[in-house]
């Protein structure tokens, strides 16, 4: 069925280009695909034109793409996440529109196109929106919170970013050249085997997530070692902000859970193209092992997604309540429990696959048990708010929305944890509603709140409060409108991943869901508007003194934007909430006794080269252009080896420069009027907090 691969172009054919395909087919579905491909292509071209016209190529390369600074890398990760979010959100809108139009009607999308949509939507949201977003936040904030200058392995950090970007580029390419997998983000064989998915789609999926998962493994190693080894003197583990604890647990999950995924997809690839029999129907294959291996990864993965958000909530809630986090120790232990338990529940993703009732019951009980440490955390957050002086800023609104909605979603999770119930609602829209209920109020709200909270650190000015609140309102209302109908439909028997409905009873529900999805999109647009307006008004929103929210931890003890070297002198820590304690003791904003030269990593183009080379190599593998696959792999190796032969990998920042910058900042602080909390959202806030009467 597949013609022998051409030596130069592999399996690539003119008809694989989405515009040509649409021209030949002439269907509405193909037109939508061409439209999407057109938007992506136009977007890329506009960016290239903009860079050229504004002369931004040089600073892009010199200041950003070759930087090993964890702060710059963090910002680039989040930028990638926001771009990919836009695409995946658009796909959700298209799917919702199709479902609304397709009650008793085939709708405007072909089934195959719909299949690609839910596959890219899930894969992008998880691997190229959520993972980069949380990785970016942790990258920026965590080293500063522990009093360090950088990650333990700055070069590896940049390579991780390059790998993730390469994977994202591969997924974007599938929009224009060829098709994507229709097997969902989980990619079960035999459907994703070569017999039922002969095209390049599944291969795009395999290599995109392989690149991403290798990047995540390296990131996990980096985060863990940094937290273990780079903490400032006195920063005992039990004095770290909760955000760092959740970062540590997340990193451990990353390291250990990516392996089963890499194995599962590698085995699938061997089955597809080399005739192996890991998951085939015949010759001793065992397709159920795929589900086993995939979910060995998949379950810890969802905890990778949620734990950093939990960390953000701890920071946001304690800061905007003006109170120390309640029950610090219990929060730490709860986080560790969740991390360990997350490796014991994976079977609940395939209760219906044929195991005995006893086995199902064991995993069901383990699944319900995770609700306990999570509940501890929820109560601790509530008790933090209790008796505090709460300011309902945008992040705090997101936090409140999270607390209410996440508990509700957790309850549906406990329902699903019961195998008997699960047999009725597995793979129905009830399940889809459940996990979006965890991910949107949990993860997404957390990432957005984190971005709003820490934005001043990265860029030196606050985000406009008003559009943040508008975004919250739209996201919150939109989420309920979009997903509560799905719970109802699921209980009525609606299956997930369906491109059309035969039961007219679904009509009103899908219409409401579409309205909700539009509101969510409105929320995203509000965020973009907020960023754009804030950039334009950045002088009025500037907070150079660095502490706009009366922060508690070390990242607020520095100028905004954070200087390249973070701390002029390594701090010595003697308590939790070190910066807040210093402020209350009138001990903040000190002049160090002496300054030393600081050694920082030198810029290098190797990670960028590696990213491009791996993208090209993966593209070559997908289309069986073997010359490209090998060339890309060789280039990757060459760049890595060339970098290892570099003797001078550091550069020195003279003490005088550090001293000058620090003095200038202290001067700014001296001339800044402190603001009380009631005025923290006004232009009067220049980043200095009035001492609150505690």
């Amino acid at each position, binding site marked *: 069925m597949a013609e022998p691969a051409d030596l130069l172009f592999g399996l690539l054919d003119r008809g694989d280009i989405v515009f040509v395909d649409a021209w030949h087919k002439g269907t509405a579905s193909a037109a939508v695909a061409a439209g999407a491909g057109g938007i992506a292509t136009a977007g890329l071209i506009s960016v290239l034109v903009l860079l050229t016209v504004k002369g931004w190529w040089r600073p892009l390369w010199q200041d950003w793409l070759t930087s090993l600074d964890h702060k710059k890398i963090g910002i680039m990760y989040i930028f990638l996440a926001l771009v990919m979010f836009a695409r995946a959100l658009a796909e959700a809108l298209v799917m919702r529109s199709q479902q609304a139009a397709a009650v008793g009607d085939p709708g405007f999308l072909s089934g195959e196109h719909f299949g690609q949509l839910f596959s890219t939507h899930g894969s992008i949201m998880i691997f190229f929106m959520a993972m980069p977003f949380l990785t970016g936040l942790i990258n920026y904030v965590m080293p500063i919170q522990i009093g360090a*200058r*950088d990650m333990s392995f700055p070069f590896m950090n940049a390579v991780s970013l390059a790998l993730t970007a390469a994977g994202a580029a591969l997924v974007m390419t599938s929009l224009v050249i060829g098709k994507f997998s229709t097997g969902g983000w989980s990619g079960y064989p035999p459907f994703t085997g070569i017999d039922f998915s002969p095209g390049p789609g599944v291969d795009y999926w395999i290599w995109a997530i392989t690149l991403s998962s290798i990047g995540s493994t390296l990131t996990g190693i980096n985060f863990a070692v940094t937290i*273990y080894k780079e903490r400032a003197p006195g920063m005992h583990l039990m004095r770290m902000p909760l955000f760092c604890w959740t970062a540590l647990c997340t990193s*451990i999950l990353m390291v*250990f859970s990516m392996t*089963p995924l890499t194995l599962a997809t590698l085995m699938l690839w061997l089955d597809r193209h080399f005739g192996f029999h890991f998951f085939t129907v015949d010759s001793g294959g*065992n397709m*159920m*092992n795929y589900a*086993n*291996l995939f979910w*060995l990864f998949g379950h810890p993965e969802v905890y990778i997604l949620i734990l950093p958000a939990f960390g953000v909530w701890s920071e946001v809630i304690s800061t905007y309540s003006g109170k120390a986090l309640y029950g610090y120790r219990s929060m730490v232990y709860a986080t560790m429990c969740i991390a*360990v338990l997350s*490796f*014991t529940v*994976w*079977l609940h993703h395939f209760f219906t*696959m*044929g*195991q*005995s009732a006893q*086995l199902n019951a064991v995993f069901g009980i383990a699944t319900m048990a995770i609700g306990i440490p999570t509940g501890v955390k929820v109560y601790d957050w509530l008790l933090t708010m209790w008796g505090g002086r709460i300011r309902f800023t945008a992040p705090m609104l997101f936090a409140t929305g999270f607390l209410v909605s996440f508990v509700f979603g957790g309850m549906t999770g406990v329902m699903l944890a019961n195998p008997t119930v699960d047999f009725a609602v597995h793979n129905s829209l009830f399940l889809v509603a459940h996990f979006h209920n965890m991910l949107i109020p949990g993860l997404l709200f957390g990432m957005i709140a984190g971005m709003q909270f820490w934005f001043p650190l990265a860029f030196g000015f606050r985000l406009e409060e008003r559009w943040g609140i508008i975004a919250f309102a739209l996201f919150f209302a939109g989420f309920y409108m979009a997903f509560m109908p799905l719970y109802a439909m699921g209980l009525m028997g609606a299956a997930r991943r369906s491109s059309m409905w035969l039961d007219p009873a679904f009509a009103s529900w899908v219409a409401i869901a579409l309205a909700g999805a539009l509101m969510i999109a409105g929320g995203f647009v509000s965020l973009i508007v907020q960023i754009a307006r804030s950039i334009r008004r950045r002088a009025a929103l500037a907070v150079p003194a660095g502490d706009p929210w009366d922060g508690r931890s070390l990242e607020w003890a520095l100028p905004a934007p954070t200087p390249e070297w973070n701390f002029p002198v390594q701090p010595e820590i003697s308590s939790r909430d070190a910066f807040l304690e210093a402020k209350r003791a009138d001990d903040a904003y000190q002049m160090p006794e002496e300054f*030393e*030269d*600081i*050694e*920082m*990593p030198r810029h290098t183009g190797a990670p960028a080269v590696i990213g491009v080379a791996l993208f090209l190599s993966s593209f070559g593998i997908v289309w069986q252009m073997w010359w490209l696959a090998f060339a890309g792999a060789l280039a990757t190796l060459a760049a890595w080896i060339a970098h290892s032969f570099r003797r001078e990998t*550091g550069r020195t920042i003279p003490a005088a420069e550090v001293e000058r910058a620090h003095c200038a900042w202290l001067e700014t602080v001296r001339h800044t009027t402190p603001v009380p909390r009631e005025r923290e959202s006004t232009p009067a806030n220049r980043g200095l907090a009035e001492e609150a009467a505690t």
Partner: protein
Amino acid sequence: MSEKHRGDDIAESEDLGRKEELRRYLIGGAATILLTLAAFAVVAFNLFDRGATLLTVSFLALAQIAAHFHFFLHIDLWKSHRDDLMLILFTLLIILLMVGGTTWILFDQWSRMM
């Protein structure tokens, strides 16, 4: 990032240190070879019945892995970094959960297919 050099004076005990480390490698080498030969011998000469052989050979493997960790990798329960030990133990836990779980699940499914 800054490096602190604390002087290159070679301690008096260095020679002892080297001899002791060399002895460790030699003992380790001998131990691992013996454990290997023992395992192969148990199988080659059919010393026990099937079940006992499987068990013996498994224990010999475990012992040899421990020998590798101790003699070659210098894992010392008393002097090693707490972080490193925690990592080994945690990895062991993960492996037990993943391998144990996988084995149980696959065999359970298979038994229900027959």
